[in-house]
């Protein structure tokens, strides 16, 4: 069952590569949040009940409900164009995602020789999600898409921490604090309504414009 959920999470990453609409991306994020919630419940044996309850609830409320809602509302209120407007085509994105999967699974299978505690499917998909998140950040100009990329990356990290958590359950709780950063980023975008997009690599002038 756990493996099926992880595979569904992996398929959602492929879906992200072929969609052009921000709202679809946000729905996929909510779906990923639900998958992670279910995965947390099935992995509950690694955690004590208090940590388990906190992490499961946080995952459900935060990743599956609150953040997707915030992002949808920001798009509505800031009148952001609903298209993703990526620098690369869907075909390129999908091809790259496939390569990321191949690379991640190769790493997971190869590295399985170094750690008998590692589950290649979890590790491969988690690692692929982290790389995919980075790719979304680099391949898009909109701040909202950067945030979506960060969230995908964070979902991958959460999955990885669940996979690794058998060795040291504390890391799952530590990793949850990444959501705090995300919350601040979303809150600034939501409340302050800053410009919808700028290059992360370009300097800003005294008025906040790229120079």
């Amino acid at each position, binding site marked *: 069952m756990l493996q099926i959920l992880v595979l569904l999470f992996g398929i959602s990453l492929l879906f992200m590569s072929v969609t052009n609409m921000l709202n679809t991306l946000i729905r996929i994020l909510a779906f990923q949040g639900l998958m992670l919630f279910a995965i947390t419940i099935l992995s509950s044996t690694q955690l004590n009940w208090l940590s388990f309850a906190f992490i499961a609830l946080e995952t459900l409320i935060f990743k599956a409900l609150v953040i997707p809602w915030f992002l949808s509302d920001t798009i509505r209120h800031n009148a952001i164009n609903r298209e993703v407007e990526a620098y690369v085509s869907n075909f390129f994105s999908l091809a790259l995602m496939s390569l990321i999967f191949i690379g991640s699974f190769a790493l997971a299978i190869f590295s399985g020789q170094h750690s008998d505690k590692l589950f290649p499917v979890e590790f491969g998909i988690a690692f692929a999600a982290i790389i995919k998140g980075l790719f979304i950040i680099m391949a898009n100009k909109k701040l909202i898409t950067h945030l979506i990329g960060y969230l995908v990356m964070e979902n991958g990290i959460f999955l990885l921490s669940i996979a690794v958590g058998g060795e040291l359950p504390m890391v799952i709780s530590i990793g949850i604090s990444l959501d705090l950063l995300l919350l601040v*980023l979303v809150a600034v975008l939501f409340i302050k309504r*800053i*410009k919808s997009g700028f290059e992360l*690599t370009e300097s800003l002038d005294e008025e906040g414009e790229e120079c």
Partner: protein
Amino acid sequence: MLVFALFLYPLFAAFLSLVIQQKRKIDILVILHALLHFGLGAHAFIRRGSLGQMDDLGLFIFLITSLVYLAAAFYRWGEINEGTLRRYRIHSIVLMLFIASMDAACLVKDLGLIWIFVEATTLSSAILITYDNSKASLQAAWKYIFICSVGIALAFVGLLLLVLAQGSHASLHLAKIDISQLSAFWLKLSFIFIMVGFGTKIGLAPLHFWKPDAYNAAAPALCALLSGALMNTALLPILRVDKIMRAAGLGALAQDVYLLMGFISVFVATIYIVKRPNLKRILAYSSIENVGLIMICFGLGGSAIYAGYLHILGHSLIKAALFLLAGNIIRFFGEKAYGKLPGLLQKHKFTGWVWLLGLFMLLGFPPSPLFVSKFLIFGELMGRGMYPQLILLVLLFASLAYAIFKSSFQMFKQDDTAEKERLSHTAFLSPAVLLAIAIILSIWLPVFD
């Protein structure tokens, strides 16, 4: 016991500042915090072990933070602040919490906890950057927090891989990591992620993009702390993991990575310094250059390790002083572009001369600790026969010195319309004291165990 004071005081001051109705009194709370910080640091220096489990490396970073914070706190006293009381109150509370987060990162030995405290410094410093609530500062803070969040997330992946590297009985506590059980493959991968992650936070190229904007938008005292204290705190986990790498026999790989990232940083910073004639941005790019040099020191090893620690110390003091002085200059002129700042000596002679001295020291001219560290770097490069790297570094230093002096000398042009400006004593003496300490340390060189 003393260690509790470090964390209880900010909480106590935060509650107290909620009922205080004057900015001056809030400033006093911050100064008292800085004095307490410095006092505890000095006490721990004399009586090792008085600050809990803080080791020598942690204490080294803590003491640098103490000096920079003290100067920044007194500098704030001399600043004219036009923000509302409520905003100033929040700013002061967050400032103390920001310092407490850095202290905690110096204190703990668990990489997971260090990671959490470094994350806390990102959150608190982002709030401090947005103090003036302008569009530019908000966007700079967003960029800062976003890029650093990505870096911090990658560093966390590195920690997860470090757990994986240990197999059963894994721990992130430095004393509990069993080096003999580490898988070399996972440790290498973990190190790369930790290096890239925390490297983003210290502003190593090519992950430095947040730095010029954040420094440009931040207030002078905060710039001093970001450059003189936070950068070192973010370097701390890298230095901690470096020890694991060396103990596991993977020091050579770590050194290669340091050298690569170090040279890229120095190169990129030089290019941008030549391109950007803006007071604060030049200092920001210079921080990228200097952190690159620090990485080169640790990459070279041998006597350059000493140079690395000396460079951390010297750069923190000098750069913090220059950021504070830059705050004075911007206050005189209301501008940051070099071309619009003529007649500095007519406006405020002391600030002008100290600024010039600081620039000389930053570029590594004696009497500066950076002169000694750069001398040792050159010596190590020559000793290892790394002549192409040596020539590259000399060329980059020459270009950098040319660009900085070319821009800075415009400030010393005569301007008949310039009028003399008045400054609070703490606003120009605080940076001068930092430079004086740096000069003393270049003559009586510190010994690092």
